[in-house]
């Protein structure tokens, strides 16, 4: 965001020392579970009702694409081909995703918007589509956070 300077916050320092955790939604073995969790969420079903978008999510060099059609996640592609199309992306270093996915994230990592204007999350591509479906995207990320913190979720 032009004019918005990242602040020095405990979260940024924390990112340097955070213990390494596996990001569960990037694990090909957990994809079906993630898909089922999001599609069965009552709030996501309302928020995503008119959504048909492909969302690229990247953590360093790990990537996945959530394919949403008429409010339903039809496929999650882990480590897709670079030729695979997408509409908008959300990218951050893995260590920042680990902070974002905490049940009680440090300040600014609790929000996609906050983590972008004050930290090192970035979004791009068809930004208009992302803001159109911001509620659904936000809810999807919240479910990923819940999923990350379920028993057995941390390596």
């Amino acid at each position, binding site marked *: *965001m*032009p*004019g*918005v300077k990242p*602040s*020095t*916050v405990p979260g940024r320092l924390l990112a340097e020392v955070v213990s390494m955790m596996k990001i569960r939604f990037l694990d090909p073995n957990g994809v079906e579970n993630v898909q089922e969790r999001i599609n069965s969420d009552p709030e996501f079903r309302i*928020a995503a009702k008119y959504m048909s978008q492909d969302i690229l999510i990247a953590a360093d060099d790990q990537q996945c694409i959530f394919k949403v059609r008429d409010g339903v996640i039809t496929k999650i592609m882990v480590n897709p081909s670079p030729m695979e199309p997408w509409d908008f992306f959300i990218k951050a270093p893995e260590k920042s995703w680990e902070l974002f996915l905490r049940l*009680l*994230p440090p*300040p*600014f990592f*609790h*929000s*996609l*918007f*906050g983590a972008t*204007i*004050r930290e090192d999350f970035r979004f791009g591509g068809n*930004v*208009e589509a992302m*803001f*159109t479906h*911001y*509620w659904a995207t*936000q809810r999807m990320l919240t479910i990923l956070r819940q999923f990350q913190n379920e028993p057995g979720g941390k390596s």
Partner: protein
Amino acid sequence: MRLESITGKYGYITVHGVKYRVYFEESGEGVPLLCQHTAGGDGRQWRHLMNDEEVTSKYRVVAVDLPYHGRSLPPESVEWWTEEYKLTKRFFMDFLVEFSHALGLDRPVFIGCSMGGHMALDLALECPDEFRAVIGLESAEFTPGLDIIWFNHPRISGEFRFANLFESTAPSSPEKYRREVGWVYSQSAPPVFRGDLHYYSVEHNVTDQLHQIDTSRIAVYLLCGEYDFASTPEMCQQTASKIKGAKYTEMKGLGHFPVIENYELCKTYLMPILEEISKIHG
């Protein structure tokens, strides 16, 4: 039916030659406490404070909806639909002073959140004799970069504001009140939030003037929620450090909407200040 102590009224005031019909609520008796809502919000944000007997036993709490906000409609004498809505500092400040005079408030304490927090600084600078103290929540000298096109765009619905302002609260605040923040934000007319951000993020800039605030004439208290990414604690603290005699408090576990997202926690920070003001400046 259990009735709250809050009463609502409509009144007419004239600012810059234009007559406005404005809605305001009040509760309590004592030192007048004038409450200013956030950008794109309205006076409902103060409902917990106005229902708190510990506050209303000492303070006459008044919360006004700015014109174009809440139940204060646009003025009848202006073709407002032919002009882009933008809140200006001059109108904002003059409206508040005029409203205070119209109600006969005697040098009220001013408390405002977000753009209201910014206004606390502008009032302390330009109207120190009109108020006995200002309390700025989520206040900063300058918050550039947040006048964003997507806050008022024909293809982006109010649903974006609903979600975006919800996540401006702290994650530990009660879910029901976090959602209430989003609810109120989804209800403003399309141009209002971004129009208010013209003041919040473009026009309000007191970076080079803060040293002129004289806290012997008007007490200044600034507080900021730990999770506020719009006006961060770092920015608020820096602002306070430039005002001799100003008091700064970081509110742990709170976000951009402390008085509504978690009033009980906010109160632990706010009440000592209200006690101090009523003792020293009451």
